[in-house]
């Protein structure tokens, strides 16, 4: 297998549902990020992009061939192949692992990989197969996560169930969430994130001048534990609140991956190299534990221990979910996890969670942390609605 490296990343701001990105479909946001990445890296002048692997959870408002549509919209060359990968919130990381396989084996040299989501424009599904002349109104179709009785529970119930099973208290959840907010604010200051944001330009209208949007909408810089503690639990008796859960957000993030040789030929200095990836299923009712299992699976493949890792990214679906993963990983490995290395720059609870984009964002956060701390190994991981975990392990090359 050839060595596979990461060259750069571009993302849009992460907007709130119904917020500043409300009029963009997921493919349109992806195209902005992809175009920005191509321009930033000059990849089309130095070489070519063989393909795009594009993650998304909830599908696109305008097209079912959304990966290809985004490639066309971004103005990438016609021959650029594209596939839409869906593993819910793990889509971006799965895309990264698939791209690494393609490049490592020599079926591609350069891939653009990541994902996007638009909650604002997400389509609702309606039946086209209702029998006529029976007074059956057009009916919405369900969005189920599992056919197994008792397993098709919604995300906040998953979070509360995990808090119950792994013994996570409301206070711990709020503390974790406040920490996520604080860490993100520091991350902006340290430029862990920010420089990779490409503006979303909204053309001038009769009423408004042109807008160039670059600011994440979801973070709450002035959060305190006291404020979080006052929020009502979503479900009676539960620990999950709007403040200790990830958001529903719009955004896209893409990375440029290539073989080490291609990077050398085209004069790129990679940030990191891909070591291995893993994916695994788990019970949908505790889908949040997935990354504990996939991280341990990946670590075993790589022959690495917790102590080897200088950064550990685990997408913050919920504070209860993340804290459960920490506990489970400690139990499975017999090692203690230093939480200063766990999502050290905040996560989905503070920055928001456009499902298909979060995997790529976690990857970049891991790489930036490694660069700034001179660390060696990092992993990034995510749970997936429906019960899965997906992980990837990287090694810093900017030492």
């Amino acid at each position: 297998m050839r060595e596979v490296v990461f060259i750069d990343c571009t993302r849009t701001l992460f907007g709130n549902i119904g917020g500043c990105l409300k009029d963009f479909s997921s493919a349109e946001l992806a195209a902005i990020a992809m175009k920005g990445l191509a321009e930033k890296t000059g990849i089309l002048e130095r070489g070519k992009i063989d393909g795009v692997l594009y993650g998304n959870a909830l599908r696109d408002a305008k097209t079912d061939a959304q990966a290809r549509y985004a490639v066309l919209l971004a103005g990438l060359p016609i021959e650029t192949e594209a596939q839409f990968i869906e593993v819910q919130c793990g889509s971006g990381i799965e895309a990264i692992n698939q791209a690494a396989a393609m490049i490592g084996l020599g079926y591609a040299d350069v891939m653009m990989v990541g994902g996007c989501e638009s909650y604002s424009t997400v389509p609702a599904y309606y039946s086209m197969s209702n029998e006529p002349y029976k007074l059956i109104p057009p009916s919405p179709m369900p969005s189920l996560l599992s056919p197994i009785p008792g397993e098709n529970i919604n995300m906040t119930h998953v979070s509360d169930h995990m808090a119950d099973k792994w013994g996570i208290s409301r206070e711990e959840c709020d503390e974790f969430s406040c920490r996520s907010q604080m860490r993100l604010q520091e991350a902006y200051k340290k430029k862990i994130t920010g420089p990779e944001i490409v503006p979303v330009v909204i053309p001038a209208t009769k009423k408004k001048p042109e807008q160039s949007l670059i600011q994440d909408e979801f973070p709450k810089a002035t959060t305190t534990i006291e404020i979080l503690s006052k929020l009502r639990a979503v479900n009676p008796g539960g620990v999950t609140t709007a403040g200790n859960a990830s958001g529903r957000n719009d955004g896209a993030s893409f990375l440029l991956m290539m073989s080490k040789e291609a990077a050398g030929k085209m004069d790129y200095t990679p940030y990191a190299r891909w070591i291995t990836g893993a994916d695994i299923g788990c019970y949908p009712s505790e889908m949040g534990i997935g990354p504990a299992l996939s991280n341990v699976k990946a670590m075993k493949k790589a022959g690495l221990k917790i102590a080897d890792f200088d950064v550990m990214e685990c997408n913050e679906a919920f504070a209860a979910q993340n804290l459960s993963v920490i506990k489970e990983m400690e139990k499975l490995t017999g090692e203690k996890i230093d939480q200063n290395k766990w999502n050290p720059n905040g996560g989905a609870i503070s920055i928001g969670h456009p499902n298909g984009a979060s995997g790529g964002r976690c990857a970049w956060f891991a790489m930036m942390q490694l660069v700034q701390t001179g660390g060696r190994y990092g992993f990034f991981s995510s749970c997936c609605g429906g019960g899965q975990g997906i992980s990837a392990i990287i090694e810093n090359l900017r030492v």
Partner: protein
Amino acid sequence: MSEREVVIVDGARSAFGTLGGGLRYLNGTDIGGFVVKGLVEKTKIVECTKVDSVFAGSSLADGQTRTQTRYLTQLAGLPIDVSGIYVEMQGGSSLACINHAAWKIKAGMADVVIAGGMESYSRTPAMLSTANVPYRALSPAPLKRAFSPESDRDLDIYALSDRTAAKWKISREGCDEYTMRSQELLKKAYADGITGDEIIPYTTPAGGGRAAVLADKDEVPEAEKSREYLQKLAAVHEDGVTTEGNIACMSDGAAFLLIMTAEKASELGYKPFARWIGGAHIGIREENMGFGAAYSSLKALDQSKLKLSDLDVIECNEFSAAQSLGVKREMETEWGEDIDINIWNPNGGALAIGNPSGASGARTALSAMKQLEKISGRYGLCSASCRGGQGASILIENLRI
């Protein structure tokens, strides 16, 4: 690490249903679920070893879930730790799934994968906006589906078919004859055992006031089109050659392959049909998408250092008669070699059996494997063109010698 060899051990499919036919009460994931379940039972794979993942794709949204493949793994009754990965590439989805499964296996991230695809046109949902402006007496409007951001390049399937005909001057007569050929060859394929045995029958249980519905035979061939019927049809677009009769119809169905390392197959005592030796995808202008299969095939041949003349069977999913004939001419011209028509979709294709878009690629792989076994051939190519302008291909080598 020595290179891992990827083999196709077996496969299964559903009967392919007509729109509103025998599979009409099942979502795409339901159809995929019972096919994967049937494949697992047929091969006893779960009893023998760990299945790592299912890779499944479809063109369209599913009527019951947004996490199609993960949902399917659970419907199939697979162990809870089997991951479910969805890959969409329109008509190339199942071929892309086979390729991505092979790449993950070769890269050491999996040993045993079930790969293929599913489609239910009968039950795919309409999309409506959740961002309707309230209090303005505005009705939620259906969200139209686009395959290109440029509306003048976003042609309908008949116009796409006509474009391939126009480039190579394929006649209306040629299209209708090719359609007859597909039907005749499919009939022979059932008789020869090339296809039919791999169908997993399914009975949708009675319920909600309706009787049980059995789906155990392909339904499109039941409405076989006569030459006279084809000739009488009007072309959909003026000056075109494509009619409702010489384009593949939308169909419901699923098809899956059991894929693993050669080592694992040998260890477990399986006799694989074929070895996966390569695969490729490529982009092409949206309005020329019919030719996509030609270019992904040439890319795959190039990568594997094979020539057209090395191939003993070529499956090219029959989007339409014009498209199939056009891709053949395009490949011959680009490569500078003629293709013997007798190796081209020798067992009929989507024109006769129907096109459940997400599943068709995997069906062509099943057909190619059986054909290679029958004729003791060596190499086979399976390909499909994809809406939005892409092509997907896989290359296989016969192991049933």
